[in-house]
């Protein structure tokens, strides 16, 4: 199977799964943005998705994408380290135009994944999982998403720590996407001499657009939490 056995095939799988995850994040971010305007509107969205068949199917698809992207990332890194060989360069100079994030995609990806597990525990476990199984894993109604967001981000001290943790997560994700989006485009063959600088800009813009709604929501709740403290 060329998607597993050929290097361009493997890159293509990374690119497709990564792009699908970016599209999901854009969708997720837009939904979250509702929190800033009306918590009721957000809860309506929560009810609309909840444990309905299409939401469950979507979640499973996203989980599959994450799994594929994760496994391929590890597999590619192992292959690449083997290709590099056991002898490392004693002196390694800075290569012009090579970004730090492009050389550390695995580490950035692993940090993103670690935070993702924390995030799933914070919300998914107490919402969709609770609704599906009927087990009460959280303090509130599984469909009252706004209450969970409120509790996590505005509870004094602990909430503020969570805000900072989530902001760090977004920064790491931005770095990952700043290289990832452009790299995915190149891997799919969507690049040429004229578009090279443009693809770099597109990459940065998409990375910023992805984290922007999430950051706004967290900063909004951080402000609320601090306001309540004062």
């Amino acid at each position, binding site marked *: 199977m060329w998607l597993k056995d*050929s*290097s361009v095939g493997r890159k293509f799988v990374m690119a497709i799964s990564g792009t699908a995850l970016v599209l999901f994040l854009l969708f997720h971010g837009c939904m979250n943005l509702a929190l800033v305007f009306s918590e009721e509107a957000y809860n309506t969205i929560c009810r609309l998705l909840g444990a309905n068949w299409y939401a469950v199917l979507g979640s499973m698809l996203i989980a599959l994408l994450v799994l594929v992207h994760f496994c391929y990332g590890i597999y590619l890194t192992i292959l690449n380290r083997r290709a590099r060989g056991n002898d490392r*360069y004693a002196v390694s100079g800075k290569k012009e135009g090579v970004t730090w994030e492009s050389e550390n995609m695995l580490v950035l990806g692993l940090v993103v994944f670690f935070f993702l597990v924390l995030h799933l525990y914070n919300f998914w476990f107490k919402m969709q999982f609770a609704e599906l199984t009927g087990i009460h894993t959280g303090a509130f109604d599984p469909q009252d998403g706004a209450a969970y967001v409120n509790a996590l981000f505005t509870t004094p001290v602990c909430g503020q720590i969570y805000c900072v943790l989530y902001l760090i997560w977004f920064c790491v994700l931005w770095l990952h996407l700043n290289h990832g989006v452009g790299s995915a485009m190149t891997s799919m063959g969507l690049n040429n*001499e004229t578009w090279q600088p443009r693809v770099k800009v597109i990459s940065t813009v998409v990375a910023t657009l992805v984290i922007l709604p999430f950051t706004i929501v967290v900063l909004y709740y951080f402000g609320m939490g601090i306001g309540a403290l004062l």
Partner: protein
Amino acid sequence: MDGYINIKVRVWRQAGPKAQGHFETYELKNIFQGASFLEMIDILNEQLIAEHKAPIAFDHDCREGICGMCSMYVNGHPHGPDSAITTCQLHMRKFHDGETITVEPWRSRAFPVIKDLMVDRLAYDKIMQAGGFVSVNTGGVPDANAIPIPKPKADEAMDAASCIGCGACAAACKNGSAMLFVAAKVSQLALLPQGKIEAKQRAKNMLAKMDELGFGNCTNTGACAAECPKQVSLAHIARLNREFLAAKFSD
């Protein structure tokens, strides 16, 4: 103005492919800065021979930047710290008095060390044999203008064809990938009408050979293009991906 400098050269010495390699440091006095880097190595070898020691083995041929034989990873860069040149075009004026210069061979699983700074780059020849050509019927020489080619395409094909196959791309790549080389060799033909007939087979065969020989997977960091002595563009890699994917999807 070019003067004379005293330097230390820290060189990778390895007796053979299976032997354990190590660094050795040599002192050189009064090296003229107008000398080329390889002339400096020649002087060092003269000195070693006079001391009844084995000279350093290194690849070189034309010494004018077109054959692609010279390699050497100098101070952390393939072909040394200057840009867009091969090691043979590097001059000692790029170094200062008292400097310790570290010289290593290409390090990549697909380029095993033969001796000291010499590596086996047959892998690139094998990739070329897998599809880096066009088949033509012999006979009379066709008219040069019989097949019109747009100037921008001809230029880009020529830029790709400037690749000398030295191996700096795979040596610089943190993944040990030969993508820039394969991309240049596929592009120089894919851009021209003469290359269209075998385009699908070429992309598939050359890439399969690259994977088979143990080169890594490209992650688009751009280190290859940054270190390429012929400044082959990263854009060719996107074309190779496109050619390969198009060939696979049409199967």
